[in-house]
């Protein structure tokens, strides 16, 4: 009966109720969110759903058989070639992200603690190499690491070797080196920001309580900058797993990564369902690795105290 009473509520009043809801905190929040939400839905969720759906289908020459199957996942996870590619990709991205952060931390530390009034200039200078395109920078590494490249000619000129070192280019090391260079800035910035946020009197307090430079770094500066370190680690780790330009240009056969295989499935091999299954598997594994990285870093903070 009460429901019936609600329905005979005069129409104008209902309209004011609706308008009031739109003006309420909650209503305004949802209104503001609706556009980005639509954007995310169209460009993020829908494509992922398409990929996800494809991963359960089968390619039959030119058409796609839409009956449900887990065969693609079986291939993606058990075929030695894909398993090796995936493991290699994870190894490369882990090495690159750890090395990049180790390399970026001292730079960020120097700028934050000794940059003085020139902090802005230092940060600006660090971004200068990134004004050229990514491809050009990878090509530059080809010139440096190549058979008759800068490095080999220098080594020979110094008499350290009599013939060019062939393993410089077209190897896993070349991929790692190029990626470290490519992602350095993205690691410097978050670490720099977290170092900037540390109240300098905390470091003085640590000194006052008896800590020398190394101990106070380990007990105060490092733990307080770890959010930035974790951020930098993830920012580098997640995209490098899926990089396919760098391995293609400087990796040779040894440096091929999982993204090259995925690209091949969507391209020449024309097996979208397998490509989709490889994509989803990679995504899940990278998410797990990123989560593990966060947990490890948290444990590290606790151990430092």
């Amino acid at each position, binding site marked *: 009966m009460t429901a019936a009473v609600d329905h005979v509520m005069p129409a104008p009043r209902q309209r004011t109720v609706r308008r009031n809801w739109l003006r309420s905190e909650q209503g305004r929040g949802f209104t503001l969110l609706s556009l980005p939400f639509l954007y995310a839905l169209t460009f993020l969720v829908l494509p992922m759903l398409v990929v996800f759906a494809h991963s359960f289908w089968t390619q039959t020459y030119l058409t796609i058989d839409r009956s449900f199957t887990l065969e693609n996942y079986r291939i993606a996870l058990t075929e030695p070639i894909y398993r090796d590619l995936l493991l290699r990709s994870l190894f490369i991205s882990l090495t690159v992200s750890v090395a990049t952060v180790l390399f970026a931390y001292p730079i960020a530390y120097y700028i934050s603690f000794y940059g003085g009034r020139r902090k802005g200039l230092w940060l600006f200078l660090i971004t200068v190499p990134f004004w050229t395109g990514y491809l050009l920078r990878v090509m530059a590494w080809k010139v440096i690491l190549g058979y008759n490249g800068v490095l080999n000619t220098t080594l020979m000129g110094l008499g350290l070797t009599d013939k060019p070192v062939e393993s410089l280019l077209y190897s896993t090391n070349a991929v790692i080196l190029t990626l470290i260079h490519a992602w350095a800035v993205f690691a410097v910035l978050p670490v720099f920001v977290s170092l900037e946020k540390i*109240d300098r009197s*905390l470091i*003085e*307090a640590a000194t*006052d*309580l008896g*800590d020398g430079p190394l101990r106070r770094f380990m007990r105060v500066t490092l733990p307080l900058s770890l959010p930035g370190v974790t951020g930098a680690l993830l920012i580098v780790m997640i995209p490098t797993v899926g990089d396919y330009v760098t391995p293609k240009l400087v990796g040779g056969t040894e440096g091929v990564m999982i993204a090259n295989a995925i690209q091949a499935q969507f391209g020449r091999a024309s097996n979208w369902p397998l490509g989709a299954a490889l994509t989803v598997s990679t995504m899940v594994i990278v998410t797990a690795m990123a989560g593990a990285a966060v947990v490890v870093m948290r444990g590290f*903070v606790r151990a430092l*105290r």
Partner: protein
Amino acid sequence: MPDPNAQTGKAMIEISGVTRKFGAFTALDRVSATINEGEFFSLLGPSGCGKTTLLRLIAGFDQPTEGGITIDGQPMEGMPANRRPTNMVFQSYAIFPHMNVQENVAYGLKRMRLDKAEEKRRVEEALTQVELGHLGKRRANELSGGQRQRVALARALVMRPKVLLLDEPLSALDKKLREQMQVELRHLQKQVGITFILVTHDQYEALAMSDRIAVMFDGQIAQVATPKDIYQRPVTRQVADFLGGMNFVSAEVAAENGTSLTLKTRGFGQVKTERPEGFVVNGGTATLGIRPERLRVLWDDDRSENEIAGRVVDRHYFGEITHLIVEIPDLETPLSVIETNDFGADDIPVGSQIRLAFDPDALVALRD
């Protein structure tokens, strides 16, 4: 300088001829002072006078350009902050945000490698001293301003330093809590018997807590004395002005010797005063000062040996006291008088003639 309140008389800190320059700016200019063992010593002055710079030199966060500091007989030159027998309570408290209260307090003990039980006992003892025993597990970001201040205090005291340095520790607290903490800090200092050096710009704080105060202006110490002496017998006009209100009257030097001055003023007549430290007779003039509360309103037929007559030109009511501005015929500036309200000073009409009594001892000669 004699110091009747010195606790043992043994010097804990000797500051001799310390100068600190930052480029062309001289933050400290040949400062010398002796701070005794067990003493509560305050560095008082306006912002930029060099008091914090001096504290940081004692702590070892900064090195003097010239001169030296010894702590407990040991020269501190080249000794880094982490190896000095001093601990500091920072103005911002500098509580480690990634640790809880206990971990903050135990921070400095960790490197002494005490056994677990001893460490725990000392942390608890320090937390009890500052009445925070129940908050050991609190995260640093869950503490109020007053609690943070107590944690900072416990963290420094647990180290059992020879000297505790306090950099404006109460300035971030509200008035009530600040007054309460002044009393508590004073008790705590008596209880632990450690030398405390407090930096403050609040004259009441310095007066209420210290055994001795050094008043600083422009990188120099103007006067070191007990709170009572510094308030009642300031040696310069600047010191007198910084510590509460003061009426300044210009005077002529009628006679002088090594320890006393005889000054002639219009209004107050001829008075004999102590000769302030470093006083130089220059052109035969001097400044005489008298605190507003040392002038007393004479009612009806009251008589006093020393009185001065004038007209009330303004009156300000402050609850328990009234502030009267009294014009004296012979004086160029009117006198300010503070009178308690228990006899009806708040009812004296503006424009009325009144007589004021003064104690000649309350008049002090001041260096300009």
